[in-house]
């Protein structure tokens, strides 16, 4: 599964885009993905918040993921 990372998320994983190997167990939902990420990179648990965008729209925890979705990890935004 291809994932995009921004801001501090990019620093945590060390790349802006990676093909993530979840040990063959691909996350089915946004909620699964967040859990898998936090397991692999404990730093994500320390952030003020963690959001996921699917095809450049904010996605709730229960949104199901398709293999061709553009999935982005959104740490706390701080524009302006």
């Amino acid at each position: 599964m291809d994932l995009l990372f921004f801001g501090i998320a990019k620093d945590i994983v060390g790349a802006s885009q990676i093909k993530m190997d979840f040990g063959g167990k691909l996350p089915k939902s946004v909620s699964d993905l967040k859990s898998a990420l936090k397991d692999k990179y404990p730093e994500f648990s320390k952030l003020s918040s963690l959001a996921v965008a699917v095809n450049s729209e904010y996605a709730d925890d229960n949104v199901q993921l398709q293999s061709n979705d553009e999935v982005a990890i959104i740490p706390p935004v701080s524009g302006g």
Partner: protein
Amino acid sequence: MNKIIEIVKELDTNTVYQELSHPQSGGICVFVGSVREITNNEQVMALEFETYESMALKEMHKLADVALEKWNLNKVVIKHAVGKKDVQDPVVIVGASSAHRTACFEACRFLIDTLKETVPIWKKEMFKNKSVWVSAHP
């Protein structure tokens, strides 16, 4: 076109009045956010802005649409800079124009407040000996 939405390397503050001007507008309200040299008593050398551009533009359009729906506005501008910005550089410009001033003031405040909450743009503060992603940690 009643909205102008942009993510750019360099913000030009001189064009915004022209962009918001409208024969039916008696009031134009503009907010410009700029780089402040001191944060929490520490000297900021520069800010670095990063964005998820396709999504940020979508969110900025949504934001403008909500404002256009909520208030009676003739024009809306939302522009954000990316890349490295020095002290006093403009980093964001939001503005609205309307027949009467209350609408453009309220809309302008809404635009900047909501942009800061929803638009995927990230700011790193560069201090002398460290750099910090703003708001990342509680």
